[in-house]
């Protein structure tokens, strides 16, 4: 009985988070085009619905009804597996993200945390591990398509993911040193009280602003977005690893990319910008309303991060491949390592 209730609660929670994520993806596809076009002094999609707000529905229907083509000479099994291997790691990471306060509610004798699916004590590593699994979908998709553009896109992506994954991991270490925990819930709780306690500012210790910038740059690279979108550089590689994909399989890769974007935005919010905490305690409202205000502030921060993604895309040109590698290994990596050393020293001196 207890197991049954627990299962039902967890499943409904997973369902709610998945629906929220997928709806955000749908909204993002439209918002990205709108934001880009506003920045380029255009209107963006205007045809479907008022101001084009129904464009995601039209896009979804189009992808759903498109013919599903498997190219001749492709490895059928791998070709079907690759989009799934790309999508699952992108969605599975949301399991450890705390969207709101660390409440424990008693539902029919079962302890239940409404704002986080599961609070495991290695949450950060869990997300990093599954983010690195996402590379398989891209590599195998590129390889199984039996096309040289896809293969080159896949290989580029593999090299890029491995290089920048390292910087993501190292830039987080400073935060872990300050919070002395790998659980995202504990990390969020340690940042309560006001914006100066967020690890971006980290009042009374070493601010993680540099680490945050390294994290965001590496996250942009890991999600294959401009200016690091070499795996799908359309002027060189047609569309990179998903050149041969169409219909729903293409939609899976698309969902994975946007899902990853939301995931790294959530991570940046939780690690550097205080998660669901308001910038000032007054803005958080009374204790009983923390659930609502928490989700509000969390969404606002994630939305700002996503806007930053679009902004970068509209502003910066694509890097050359050797520039990308040199930047990752010779600029970001030493900065991230230096940040760890400095944080450790300051933290030792201050809190010993």
């Amino acid at each position, binding site marked *: 009985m207890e197991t049954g209730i627990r299962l039902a609660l967890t499943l409904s929670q997973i369902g709610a988070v998945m629906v929220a994520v997928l709806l955000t993806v749908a909204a993002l596809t439209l918002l990205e085009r709108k934001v880009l076009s506003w920045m380029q002094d255009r209107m963006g999609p205007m045809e479907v619905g008022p101001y084009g707000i129904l464009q995601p529905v039209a896009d979804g229907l189009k992808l759903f009804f498109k013919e599903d083509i498997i190219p001749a000479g492709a490895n059928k099994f*791998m070709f079907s597996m690759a989009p799934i291997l790309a999508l699952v790691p992108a969605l599975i990471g949301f399991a450890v993200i705390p969207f709101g306060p660390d409440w424990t509610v008693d539902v029919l004798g079962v302890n239940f945390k409404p704002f986080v699916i599961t609070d*495991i*004590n*290695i949450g950060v*590593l*869990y997300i*990093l*591990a*599954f*983010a*690195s*699994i996402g*590379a*398989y979908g891209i*590599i*195998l998709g590129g*390889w199984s398509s039996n096309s040289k553009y896809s*293969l080159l896109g*896949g*290989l580029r992506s*593999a*090299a890029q*993911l*491995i290089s920048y*994954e390292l910087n993501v991991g190292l830039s987080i270490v400073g935060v872990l040193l300050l919070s002395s925990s*790998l659980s995202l819930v504990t990390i969020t709780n340690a940042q309560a009280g006001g914006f100066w306690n967020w690890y971006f500012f980290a009042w009374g210790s070493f601010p993680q602003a540099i680490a945050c910038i390294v994290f965001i740059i590496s996250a942009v690279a890991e999600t294959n977005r401009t200016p690091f979108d070499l795996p799908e550089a359309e002027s060189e590689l047609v569309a990179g690893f998903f050149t041969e994909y169409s219909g729903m399989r293409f939609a899976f890769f698309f969902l994975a990319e946007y899902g990853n974007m939301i995931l790294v935005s959530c991570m940046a919010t939780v690690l550097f910008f205080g998660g669901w905490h308001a910038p000032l305690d007054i803005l958080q409202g009374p204790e009983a309303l923390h659930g609502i205000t928490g989700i509000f502030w969390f969404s606002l921060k994630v939305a700002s991060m996503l806007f930053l993604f679009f902004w970068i895309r509209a502003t910066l040109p694509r890097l050359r491949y050797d520039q990308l590698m040199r930047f990752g290994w010779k600029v970001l990596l030493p900065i991230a390592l230096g940040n760890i050393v400095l944080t450790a020293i300051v933290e030792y001196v201050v809190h010993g």
Partner: protein
Amino acid sequence: METFVFFYFASIIVVTAALVIGLKNPIYSALALLVMFFHVAGLFVTLHAEFLAIIQILVYAGAILVLYLFVVMLLNLKREEHFHSQWIVGLFLGCVLFAEAVLLVVKGETTLGDNLATPTASIELTQGNTESIGELLYTTYLFPFEVASLILLVAMVGAVILTKKGIMEVKG
């Protein structure tokens, strides 16, 4: 229940490990290895070593195996027949080893059998296993840990020198 879970993970590990060396397409071999890594991580989780489980996925599945796939694709090996000609020798050796293992277990003259029969009581951790591992590495096992890091550093320097041509030549 625990025994059932253990045998599920163990059997999948054995099967996929056999597939890694048995399959002719190197890409499939790498994927069988990926499945194996995940099940090894599953074994760690059943032992309440979540940190090791995630590190297993992060390091082996996330980094090392991706590099394997990278190399395999760059070399574009279609089929690797070379290593499959020794299966008779391999089968013979495998049978001998298996017979030895069976003999040892049946005669019960090994400490391994005792350990299997009486599972040790699980140790209650006062802190998370990440903290426990960290504390052990930096206190009890500090020396081996530092030696290991030194060896890795040497390997890293070696790799840089091997790939970078002309680094050892005197410029004149």
